[in-house]
């Protein structure tokens, strides 16, 4: 039956063939990666962001391209999901964004570093990843149409819907904002957005890093939400 020398031949030939095939495929893959990842759009800021991403060991908690640790959210499509304002706010003060919940390290990044990281995440978000990450097929709001153009400011879609839902779309951490304009007036909402703790001490609502202009923009939109 099988002799030791034929077993050795099986090992050597099989390994050599597979290794050659793998090297050829690798060469082809390296030809194709620039196109598939839009490498021409890889700006110096995004490159700085990538190296900052590495030197901060973001992969030690997060996944990107599905790779990393499973302690913090997938970041591949975070630019689309949350948007630049949310990402920047999170990087400035993570504890403020999710008070009392799983903690992210306070990195004390400069504003320039933050925009580098945002540029990197924006670039990663546009890659062709063969369909990953898939849209959740069983999502409750899978059938709900995209967010309606109801005059909502861009910052609403980035900061507020992370926790709150409007018309069934958005997060479930805070209460739904449907009808919030019926329940509260602009003055109350302004105070609430500026300093939630003074309105209701102990609330889980974060003290969001919003400018005054953003607050009035949000308030103007929120009062239009009626039941």
């Amino acid at each position, binding site marked *: 039956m099988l002799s*030791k020398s034929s077993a050795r031949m*099986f090992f050597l030939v099989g390994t050599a063939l597979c290794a050659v095939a793998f090297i050829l495929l690798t060469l082809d893959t390296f030809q194709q990666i620039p196109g598939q990842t839009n*490498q021409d759009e890889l700006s110096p800021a995004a490159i700085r962001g990538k190296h900052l991403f590495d030197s901060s*060991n973001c992969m030690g*908690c997060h996944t990107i391209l599905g790779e990393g640790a499973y302690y*913090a959210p997938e970041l591949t499509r975070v630019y689309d999901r949350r948007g630049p304002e949310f990402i920047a706010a999170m990087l400035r003060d993570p504890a403020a964004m999710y008070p009392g919940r799983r903690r992210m390290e306070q990195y004390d990044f400069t504003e320039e570093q933050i925009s580098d990281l945002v540029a990197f995440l924006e670039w990663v978000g546009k890659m062709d990843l063969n369909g990953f990450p898939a849209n*959740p097929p069983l999502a409750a*709001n899978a059938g709900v149409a995209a967010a309606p153009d109801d005059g909502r400011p861009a910052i609403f879609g980035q900061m507020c819907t992370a926790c709150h839902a409007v018309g069934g779309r958005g997060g479930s951490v805070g209460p739904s904002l449907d009808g919030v304009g019926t329940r509260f007036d602009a003055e109350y909402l302004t105070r609430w957005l500026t300093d939630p703790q003074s309105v209701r001490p102990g609330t889980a609502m974060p003290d969001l890093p919003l400018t005054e202009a953003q607050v009035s923009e949000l308030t103007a939109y929120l009062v239009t939400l009626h039941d």
Partner: protein
Amino acid sequence: MKYESQRIAYWFFATCMLLFGLQLVYGFIMAFAHAGLDGLHDIIPFHTARAVHTNLLVMWNLCGFMGAAYFIVPEESERELYWPKLAVVQLVAFVAVGVTAVIGFHFSWWEGRKFLEIPRPLDYLVVVDVLLFIANIGMTILKGKRITTTASVLFFGLLMAALLYLPGMIPTDNQTQDSYLRWWVVHLWVEGVWELIMGGILAFLLIKLTGIDREIIEKWLYVIVGLTFLSGILGTGHHYYYIGTPSYWLWIGGIFSALEPLAFLGMAMYGITMARKGGRKHANRTALAWTVGCCVMSFVGAGFLGFAHTLPQVNMYTHGTLVTAMHGHMAFWGAYAMLVLAIITYAMPLLTGRKLYDRPGAAFAFWTSNIGMIAMTLAFGIAGVTQVALERRMGMDFLAVQEEVEVHFWGLILAATLFTLGITAFIVNFIQHGLPKGDVEATLGGAAPDESTDTSDDDGAVAAADPVEA
């Protein structure tokens, strides 16, 4: 033990025990953080614990392989190590680099690339250190009285492991290229050349423990490592499904990954068959238990649980979830941790002259750690499948899902406690052996019958017929 210089293996194994113990501590820090208790966040944040946990694993596995090589190669080559003193230097340097890296992680000195977090200057030192080791082993084999298949496979595995560390050091600005090259190291190590090392060590253990003819064991060794490379090299493709690489990897990776369990199944059948058909009743049954256990658990962890999520259609939803942690824990435990513990269990009585493998603690260590690891895998599996269902399938928010699965991490902590009890018993048993002592002759001649059998010429000793073909 036949050669004076084999004794250096003891110090490699002792380092293994130390690093392994430390690895468990950092595992607990992460498990508690996942369960909602992150009291150490300000001192040891999750990503530090994670880098330490995985890098300690790699370090103690490599340390175990080096110790195993220093123990096995003189016996296979029938001569002392070529440069015995270099082995000492090389261990000290290895530990120094490792300790520096682990301390550095606590001060955010790292590269932040999953599994390859060690900062670049230390990477070069690792390469130099491993090359010294390769040179020492290589010269010993070359100048030896004979060149056996077992020693050659072991050497080839170690050499390739050193060479494959290099692609991970190629600088790139593109995340996809970075990731692509990182898997050249990580995947081609653990599902490629490390399996050569595993095959070599297993062959040595099976020759010694079962008494089956060397020619037969080594013939099947070729078949096993052949299957490993046939499936494992192109099986790297299962890391290239969704990272910005061409879509042909979906079917290449899918098909060849589906073959990977075959290599591990072959390994399991090989271990079990050799152990059952072997004519020699070696007294160190505990070492045989670890050896066969390694073959079986690597099939379950690396082969079966790996296959459970390498099909592209499944991986679309499990990629980047706790399902990976489920597979990763049992795969590393079965294939590499148990392998190192097997060679340690086999070598310790020979190195120290004390036979403690019959102590209740030795059997307790084997069973408790394995039951603990199976329970840990279940806990990770339940948490992972829940995460996939809620987050990836139903679209729930990441943090909300993490809070849903916190309870499974309490299950994980219980299981890990059981596992740690087993490992503690192993380490206690290791310490009870004491330091290596007695001269080579005393071990050779004055030992109990099993040891003298052990040191007799093993080639063609007992079973002449091939048990697999018989």
